[in-house]
């Protein structure tokens, strides 16, 4: 079970929760299970999400393993110049 902290933009889709617990071992599984639990996440997924694992932000990699007790944040997808 991993604890996923949600930045503010995602909380409306998760009934206001600041964090949720999900049984997932990869980023892909985490995002899929999160969407199954909170279908309103789809809009955010369309706009793009990034996942921070133990401080490293991953915008695209989905097959990444989630280490036990990892710190997970769901963040908006970043744009740069």
């Amino acid at each position, binding site marked *: 079970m991993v604890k996923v902290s949600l930045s503010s933009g995602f909380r409306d889709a998760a009934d206001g929760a600041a964090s949720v617990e999900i049984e997932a071992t990869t980023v892909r599984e985490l995002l899929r299970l999160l969407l199954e639990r909170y279908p309103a996440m789809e809009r955010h997924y369309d706009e793009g999400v990034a996942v921070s694992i*133990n401080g490293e*932000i*991953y*915008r*695209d*990699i989905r097959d990444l393993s989630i280490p036990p007790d990892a*710190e997970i944040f769901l963040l908006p997808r970043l*744009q740069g*110049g």
Partner: protein
Amino acid sequence: MAEQSYTDQEFKVIGSRVRRPDGIDKVTGRARYGADAFAPGQLVGRILRSPHAHAKIKKIDTSRAEKMKGVKAVITCDDLPDLTGGRGPNYDILVNCMARGTALYHGHAVAAVAAVDEPTARKALKAIKVEYKTLPHVTDVDAAMAEDAPIVQPGVEHDGKPSNIVNVSQFGHGDVEAGFAEADVIIEKSYKTEQTHQGYIEPHACLASMGPDGDGELWVTTQGHFTFRTVCAQLLGLDIAKLKVTSSEIGGGFGGKTHVWMEPLALAMSRKANRPVKLVMGRDEVFMGSGPTCSTSMDVKIGAKKDGTITAGLATLRYQDGPFPGPWGMLGGMTAWACYDLPNVQAVAYDVLVNRPKVAAYRAPSAPMAAFAVESTMDLVADKIGMDPVDFRLKNVAKEGSKAAYGPTYGPIGIEATLNAVKNHPHMKAKLGKNQGRGMACGFWFNFGGQTCTDLNIGTDGTVNLTMGTVDVGGARASMSLIAAEELGIPYEKVKCNVGDTSSLGHNDTTEGSRGTFSSGMATIFAARAAVEVLKQRAALMWEIDVEDVEWEDGAAHAKGIEHSNLAPLTLAEIAKKSPQTGGPIAGHNEVVADGAGVSFASHICDVEVDPETGKSKILRYTVVQDAGKAIHPDYVEGQFQGAAAQGIGWALNEEYVYGEDGRLQNPSFLDYRIPVCSDLPFIDTEILEIPNPNHPYGIRGVGETSIVPPLAAIAGAVSNAVGVRLDHTPMSPPRILKAIHDANGA
């Protein structure tokens, strides 16, 4: 990620200041930019733009223009049917490229013409009659948030009411009110920054050619030709594979060329005319019709103990996005407090619509404004408690293990190292004269990687063609050539790096987020290593030994073991020469999603002299300290630091979009919009720190953006110390400085 992790290897050519591969072409005029392409029978495209800030388009009559001799196509939004589903980022791009029923800002495109020459195209634009019904407009972010503000986009609601507020983001942790209750000193101040443009010298330009069979080609100045292909194909209903996009040499982008502005219009006109169409923006169009950064209004509150420990920080940030929603306020909120380890911190960020051009990314988008407000307030707190501003920052600096205000816990980061470098820099100890002041500030940017695809092909003479898919905006061809040379063990001069068109490689994300050297560097390393495996196989064939007995070192295959001691090493050139007989071409390829870019920090020092009679300020000395992870080509790294600082200086002192009461942009030219020129700037000193990024084989971090973040605050500190009055509004132009002095003196 293991194969991508830092290898801590000894480098032979990485870090050397080799000749720039594009230098001669650029200084001789041989380099081909966006406007330098020609095609047989090409037409000249021109765009008709709205003279109003906000207006219903009741009718567009193109009949006279269409009948003019030499006019081959006239288009309106009717020629660009909505294929996006009517929502989302690509719909916004479609609406921004050509107004659909409503002109949303002064300069919004409403029609376009393709004609045989420029005069005919201009005459045709004048022949198009547009009937407008003007609507109330709003161009100021605070005014746009007022309850009675004109609504920019019907349908947007906030708190259940029509509104221009499209998004509210919150980041932080702890209890800020409890934190402020613990503080000995609290400083609260409001700030404003005006809208600025990236100011790239090369305007937007493209040559579009659509064939009757639905195949198309687009030559364009862009930071991301693959992204342009995807967007244009969707907007025009084309197969992605049938649209070939070639990126020209680029004369600056800084985020402004990550977005599609007019290219679908060129393609649509070419499709209608069945002729190639060249479309080049004038400078006024670049200001009015491309994407500047946000203007902002911000409030920052910091509480601290007398010993310098910050107990709480609160930032309320209001960013205007133009008429379309963007992530800009959100990014300001994420970056505002990123340099510090704070127990109680919050950033509340508003994204707000106004009748100005669609906002685009500008080098570390949104971070400079938030840093201006936070860092300026940091100075005020340090002053209030009588602490050196560098020591105050060091007391609260984020370190490995600190919880970032935007959420995650930091790994190894370089902000403390940049601050210590600033503290010990001779610049900080240099004496100042009359009317002179010194400021310093810190900055943060995320950096990222993304999809990347690279090909490496070895010729039979032992030279190497490296084809990368990320646009070279600041030295990537040199850096990639160095990396390929390092991996293969050959001289830098033996590698020729090109940017491939969209038909020659798999998708590459846009060159943004300081990702070019990080991500294409990673792909080049792996492509070269794949080629080395082929070279070893070919050497084994030539020697008739097992490939396991071959190793690669110093640009040559070596046979291992005493039983092969009679075999002299085979160089890359020798193996390549025999390649037709050993299996054909030798190549390496890699596609990768290069994540793990690592965050980046910089600290700057600035000395300014201000003429108290005129308010004119002069930058006397400027020093940039930034963590580069590993500087592949130090000249280019220093150039990125200096370029970012120069842009920040312009932003801080002079650059500003000026809107009239009528909502029209008053200064769309470089005469009236004042970017810094050489005579405005001192030589900008740089200090490169190399704290390896553990997620890249060479330890590379992005370097292109972070150093535009500190200048606004560093210069504000310097100007404020020079005149004795805190400046809180950029640009700190002479009239604004004079007004601040007069207001402080009660004049």
